[in-house]
């Protein structure tokens, strides 16, 4: 018995030594949270149910929680058939965003900073996060849903697949999240935009929803975008395309004109206006616009191929 105790004591010491060396510089506390005036002291998102995970199925469970919050309750068992990867005993991040889009939700990739994730939570948006709860050389991958935080108590609140919400030290969560690559998704219902001041990221999520999800669900999102960033031509352009896909040609034309006046040098809105004119049988207008688009493409250094293609098609009478 004493020998065993000695051995386990030795092992513990070794472990401690190794742990300390493994921590290295990382053991020092991470950078303090920025004293961001826009970030409240604490926040908690309502309406996210606690969904218990089964073995290996933290992905489907986390997805079920954000879907229920967005008003689309689905069982994790049903989701498992759609996102789980048996050969990897887990779920890939790309399958989660894909599944959200397919259900008409905006899958916005949160910027890889703790403040960004907390900012969404403060705006009432749960964030689906991928953590590496172990070490880089002994990874323990896990999906959770970040639903709250309390900066004074130094805690993050996660729905992590257990029976009840879990309070984790903010410093620990910062480490496990960044060790996992800082992957975080805000899943938002149609027309609702992330709180982040990130027009590029939001537009990319909207365009992906339009192209690889449901175009109809992207339309209210583009509308909200043009309200928030009226000077950004890309929002009007997306709105025009979503309207065009829905068969609303006057709406599409009006939005394209807004895009054009916001960025007179961009060839894209002019190109699509040319096609609208062509559809109306205004052949001369269409050709003039197509030529203008091709010229603009050269001035701004855009790939000229699509604009030449438009012109060629029209000249050949399409």
């Amino acid at each position, binding site marked *: 018995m004493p020998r065993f105790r000695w051995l386990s004591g030795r092992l513990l010491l*070794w*472990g401690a030594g*190794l*742990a300390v060396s*493994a*921590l290295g510089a990382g053991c020092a*506390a991470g950078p303090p949270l920025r004293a961001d005036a826009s970030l409240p002291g604490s926040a908690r998102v309502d309406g996210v149910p606690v969904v218990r*995970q089964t*073995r*290996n*199925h*933290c*992905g489907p469970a986390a997805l079920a929680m954000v879907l229920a919050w967005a008003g689309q309750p689905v069982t994790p068992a049903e989701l498992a058939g759609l996102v789980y*990867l*048996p*050969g990897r005993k*887990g*779920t*890939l991040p*790309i*399958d989660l965003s*894909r*599944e959200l889009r397919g259900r008409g939700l905006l899958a916005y990739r949160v910027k890889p900073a703790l403040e960004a994730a907390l900012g969404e939570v403060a705006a009432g948006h749960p964030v689906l996060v*991928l953590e590496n*709860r*172990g*070490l880089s050389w*002994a*990874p*323990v*991958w*896990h*999906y959770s849903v970040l639903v709250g935080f309390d900066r004074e108590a*130094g805690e993050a609140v996660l729905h992590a*697949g257990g029976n009840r919400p879990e309070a*984790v*030290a*903010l*410093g*620990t969560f910062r*480490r*496990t999240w960044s060790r*996992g690559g800082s992957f975080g998704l805000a899943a938002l219902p149609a027309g609702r935009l992330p709180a982040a001041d990130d027009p*590029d990221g939001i537009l*990319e999520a909207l*365009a992906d929803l*339009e*192209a*690889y*999800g*449901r175009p109809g669900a992207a339309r209210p999102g583009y509308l909200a975008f043009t309200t928030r960033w009226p000077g950004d031509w*890309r929002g009007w*352009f*997306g709105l025009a*395309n*979503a309207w065009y896909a829905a068969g609303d040609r006057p709406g599409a034309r009006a939005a394209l004109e807004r895009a054009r006046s916001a960025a007179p040098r961009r060839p*894209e809105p002019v190109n*699509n206006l040319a*096609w609208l004119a062509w559809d109306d049988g205004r052949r001369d207008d269409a050709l003039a616009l197509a030529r203008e688009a091709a010229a603009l493409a050269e001035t701004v250094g855009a790939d000229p191929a699509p604009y030449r293609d438009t012109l060629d*098609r029209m000249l050949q009478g399409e």
Partner: protein
Amino acid sequence: MRTRRPLLETVATVALFAVLCLSLPTSPAVAGWIPTTAAVATSQARLVSVLERQEIADALAALGVDPAEAARRAAGLSDAEALQALERFDSLPAGGNPFVAIAGLTVFVFLVLLLTDILGYTDVYPFVKRTAQ
């Protein structure tokens, strides 16, 4: 009869994949119309071809996903996601259950993780009492 099934299955999968790709509302009816994805692409994202998506579907099927379901998944990826899958499929992290991963670890790593858990550096074991910093 039995040996024919894989071939038939492959043909059926490819056909289904083509149908799925065609049914995707990616491009409006007019050729030459510029889609939003082309106008907002910020990164070096490029269009992913149907063949490349078939490659992803095959990889998913090889990992136990039903071929038809694998085709549906590959077709729904955005170009940026599909590129990720094409370039580093094996290194994409698959979030799973911690306890399965732990089962394969040695006592040694168990102790290391236990200590790092106590220090708040990792978050593996639920029985480690967490201390707020």
